[in-house]
């Protein structure tokens, strides 16, 4: 574990900004898809793919790699952007999101793209799969250097399957499992606390026996540090409740749940990219 230098930090912030720009452009080209979640998750995906995880885009099935499961598959654009920026496939392909014949399916489909570890979209199923993988890393094919990461949305914590997995991972002491929750307080029908209240969310995870952290999920340094803190606890799984701003980086999308499942039109996309470029210039 090492703290990030200012240069590294600056580089990560630029990467997060680029993931946001790709996301806006992809959604605008597709005229379909989800905006708020992927934008809010840019620092989480940046931290994982450009700092925390051991992986090699040239060897997507490298046996020593860390494994990433995206549970809230509707945030696929930011995963696709991260995979492309990391070098798993050409950046030019990002424009094909949601097109017929594209490898960038509306929701991620394993086998379609190198580096894509799991099919997802139906909510609440990522944590179980990550737990299964982490079980293998700990109990079946011990590989103490490898970790298994999963990102979940907060809305999908409504699903019972998630809490079944939470009990399972706790029972079997899956210390190599690190879950990150994109805590943006929105879901399709409105505020998470109005649709189906989740707070006190940290208390819930602690009660399930998890090593529980809460951070500002739009601060990439905090995401990296929390992942390292999670790696250090080997007796039980870690969950990082990453508080994020939905639609982060685009002022007219921020905190507005209506952008959960909506794509920007060309005009909105131009405005969003202008805002993001302005931030980029300052980084």
């Amino acid at each position: 574990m090492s703290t990030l230098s200012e240069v590294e930090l600056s580089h990560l912030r630029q990467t997060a900004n680029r993931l946001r720009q790709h996301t806006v452009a992809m959604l605008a080209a597709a005229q379909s898809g989800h905006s708020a979640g992927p934008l809010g998750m840019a620092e989480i995906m940046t931290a994982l793919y450009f700092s925390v995880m051991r992986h090699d885009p040239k060897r997507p099935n490298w046996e020593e790699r860390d494994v990433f499961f995206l549970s809230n598959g509707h945030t696929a654009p930011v995963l696709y952007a991260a995979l492309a920026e990391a070098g798993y496939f050409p950046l030019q392909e990002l424009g094909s999101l949601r097109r017929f014949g594209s490898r960038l399916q509306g929701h991620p489909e394993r086998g379609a793209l190198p580096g894509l570890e799991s099919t997802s979209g139906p909510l609440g199923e990522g944590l179980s799969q990550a737990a299964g993988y982490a079980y293998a890393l700990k109990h079946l094919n011990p590989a103490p250097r490898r970790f298994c990461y999963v990102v979940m949305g907060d809305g999908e914590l409504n699903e019972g399957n998630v809490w079944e997995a939470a009990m399972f991972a706790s029972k079997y002491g899956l210390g190599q499992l690190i879950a990150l929750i994109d805590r943006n307080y929105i879901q399709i029908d409105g505020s998470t606390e109005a649709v189906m209240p989740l707070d006190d969310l940290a208390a819930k995870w602690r009660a399930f026996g998890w090593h529980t952290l809460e951070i500002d999920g739009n601060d990439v340094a905090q995401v990296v540090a929390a992942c390292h803190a999670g790696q250090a606890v080997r007796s039980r799984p870690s969950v990082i409740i990453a508080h994020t701003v939905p639609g982060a980086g685009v002022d007219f999308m921020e905190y507005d749940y209506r952008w959960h499942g909506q794509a920007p039109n060309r005009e909105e996309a131009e405005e969003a990219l202008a805002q993001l470029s302005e931030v980029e210039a300052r980084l």
Partner: protein
Amino acid sequence: MTMVKLTDYPVETSALSTGGPVEPIRQGFGRGLVAAGERNSKVLALCADLTDSTSMRAFADRFPERFIEVGVAEQNLVTVAAGLAHAGFIPFTASYAAFSPGRSWEQIKTTASLNRQPVKIVGAHAGLVTGLDGATHQMLEDIALMRVIPNMVVLAPGDAREAEKATLALAADERPGYIRLAREATSLFSQSDAPFEIGPAYQLTIGHDVTVVATGPMTPEALHAADLLTDQNIAAEVIHCPTVKPLDLDTIWASAKRTRRVVTVEEGQIIGGLGSAVAEGLSEVHPVPVKRLGVQDRFGQTGQPQELWNAYELSASHLARQIGAFVRQSR
């Protein structure tokens, strides 16, 4: 002095009247799973709090490090298995069929099949004969649910010997798969050295009047019915179809071309089940009248095994009567 007297509460039990040796199909699965575990160290067993009744106990005792108890959580059962499959293992997941695939269908579709992971779904206590548990526990829709999923293998072995072989075959197969198991002791009609592969249907008798396609523990009943049909001067060609998907339409078609009529027999809903699969397939290549015997769009209910097979007209004598009427009517 108690007012309740046990003499007022008589015990009533009746096993299936089969004649000949019997064994629960699930026990054959249990033996097959141990054998699969011996052959391949990647084979795992996961159970949702039903280790004994799904016959996973022997595997759990023999390979405790490869047995995973997930508790009463069928959705987690299947999705954890998908993660283990991604890590290179071959997970068998067991519960009652009423709960998995009953409760875990979408997880199976998404995280096993669409996700290209060779998760094996073991549905125990499938069919009408589940003890006395009643309609909530009688899984009659499993074949319909599982065969509509692309890339999914669907097996309904006919007896315990075949279940053992089918389990080994499923472990060696790279696809996700479903295996349907019955609870009660049913006839051991197959030979120990009979071949088994995923795919083929097996012609068991020769007859020119009607093709009877049966699956699961209905096959020995269909064989018995074929014997009874000789009294009506009807020669039935019985085809055992332990693989419902992919369906061996060639074998069924080859027979139906000669007999010109087909009866299907299954211990589950005819809607979406084997009967549907056969009717759909034949109607495209060689339309012949098809009579589907099984559960006729009804729920199950509490009852002794033989009572249930009688009530749903699935015992050999009921099958013989219905097949005979169909043959006479379609001549």
